[in-house]
């Protein structure tokens, strides 16, 4: 290698680094600064010290949003289990199997806004769900799905799961297809039944995919917005029942023009994703030591 500083690599990097520098790195520092100010996003920020943070920790809605965001993380284990089962189901050579895989993929590309509004119609008091339940005689009275605070989060989480099924299924399917066939043959010779076969061979073989899906889907769960927005019509649900961290951040910054306060919220959110990722990476390392 030459000792002289070669500019070529830096020139290759320049456009991408410029974009990421301006639109991701600079904003982190800017948000740290805004979080110590009173700022309405239009007029210049005014320094107020720790006021936003002290106010934040006394804000009931903040604690509710934090709680809701943690509840939302439940979609991750559910998605992992459902999508592994789904991947096992479609990992066989049946005529037309590719058509099924493609159909399962349709929600993924349809986009959470369009699908979110479709779900909103589905769970409308006059929607399909009530129609089916009433016609089948399972209900006497229609349920107000969207107006019931206890149902806001479960509905949004079901939507997130429904939107993600096809995507994560494909990831696990690719993982399953990388597992050597001989391992399954050996399991059969050892007398494993179908369940033991997947428990002893598929699950360990899918470890990298499980870690990947855990990281990606839990970040997505913490950052969830579109599902809440569409299902609650942009209001966050009755009694803030659907307000998550990111929804509250958006509401404070862009609905109420409390951008300084929202910045403090954003910093708390960043610390949470940081701790979470460290936790994820450490469990990943522990896993690879075992292998």
């Amino acid at each position, binding site marked *: 290698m030459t000792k002289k500083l070669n500019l070529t690599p830096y020139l290759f990097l320049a456009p*991408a680094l410029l974009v990421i520098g301006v639109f*991701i790195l600079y904003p982190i520092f800017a*948000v740290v600064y805004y979080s110590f100010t009173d700022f309405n996003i239009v007029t210049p920020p005014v320094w107020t010290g720790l006021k936003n943070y002290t106010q934040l920790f006394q804000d009931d809605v903040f604690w509710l949003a934090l709680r809701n965001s943690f509840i939302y993380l439940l979609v991750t284990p559910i998605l992992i289990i459902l999508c592994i089962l789904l991947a096992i189901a479609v990992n066989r050579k049946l005529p037309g199997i590719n058509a099924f895989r493609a159909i399962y993929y*349709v929600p993924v*590309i349809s*986009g959470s806004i*369009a699908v979110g509004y479709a779900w909103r119609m589905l769970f409308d008091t006059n929607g399909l769900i009530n*129609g089916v339940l009433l016609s089948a005689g399972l209900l006497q009275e229609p349920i107000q799905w969207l107006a019931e605070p206890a149902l806001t989060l479960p509905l949004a989480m079901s939507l997130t799961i429904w939107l993600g099924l096809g995507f994560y299924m494909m990831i696990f399917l690719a993982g399953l297809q990388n597992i050597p066939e001989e391992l399954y043959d050996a399991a*059969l010779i050892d007398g494993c039944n179908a369940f033991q076969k997947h428990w002893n061979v598929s699950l360990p073989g899918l470890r990298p995919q499980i870690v990947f899906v855990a990281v990606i889907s839990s970040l997505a769960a913490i950052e969830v*917005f579109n599902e809440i927005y569409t299902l609650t019509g942009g209001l966050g649900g009755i009694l803030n029942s659907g307000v998550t961290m990111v929804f509250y951040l958006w509401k404070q910054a862009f609905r109420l023009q409390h951008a300084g306060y929202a910045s403090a919220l954003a910093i708390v959110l960043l610390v949470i994703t940081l701790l979470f990722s460290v936790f994820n990476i450490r469990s990943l390392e522990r896993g690879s030591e075992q292998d």
Partner: protein
Amino acid sequence: MNQTHTAARPQPNVAARNAARKRRQITETIFWYALLLFIAAITILPLAWTLLTSLKGPNDAIFAVPLQLLPKDPTLDNYARVWKQLPVANFFINSIIVSVATTTLNVLFTALAAYPFAKMKFWGRDVIFYLLLATFIVPPQLTYIPGFVLARNVFQYYDTLLALIFPNLATVFNIFLLRQAFKSVPNDLIDAAKIDGASELRIWWQILLPVIRPSLATAAIITFVTSWNDFLWPSLMLPTMVNKTLPVGLAALQGMFASDLRATAAGIVMTIIPILILFIFLQRQFVRGMTGAVKG
């Protein structure tokens, strides 16, 4: 699936066993098809019902006991009503412009950046790379507050499509994905070109990019779909109706036609159809692309 491997030992009553096995295989096949169809129904039903609702006229019940799924008198009136009230054609063109421009430039920029990370030695390489990876955990919504200030006061592109394109011209995910692709290209290929006197830029463009084409397609598809379906940032940036993209326009429609389920359904269908057509044509690339990303 694998029963054939175990039947090595000679067995009495071979014919009977074979018949039993065949019966079992048929039952199993029926079971799997039933399960696959059931899941397909869960996947497709909400969208199919939306489509059917969008075709119902004012006298067709959306809600009835017993259930009425099919429109008795199918009509396109709901589409006409939405089309007249909202500049849907503008939404569509805006979405195309934003997604195509973002995808093309993003893949270009990230492919440029990925090459030195994979194949060159330079001062600060690992530090820069891990710094980039660390930004992966930054919630995008955090960047929207300073991004909003930049858009209004610095770049002056508030309420234009540029506001949607510029912040997405490079993504860490694509740099990571394409770096893996460049890494798998043998060094001999690059060394041979260097001996012939080719510049790094020419090697990148003429030799490496064609080799990593499948990964470029993956990066392009992921970027396109993400950009097409992006909502929160575009909704902050595009207050003027004719400037909106499809998802933002759909949200506006939902506000206007809140109680009109038929019109809302028509709007949803119009939003999904374009990307669905693209998906049908590029199905294999889509699915392979999205899964290829994981190994990266």
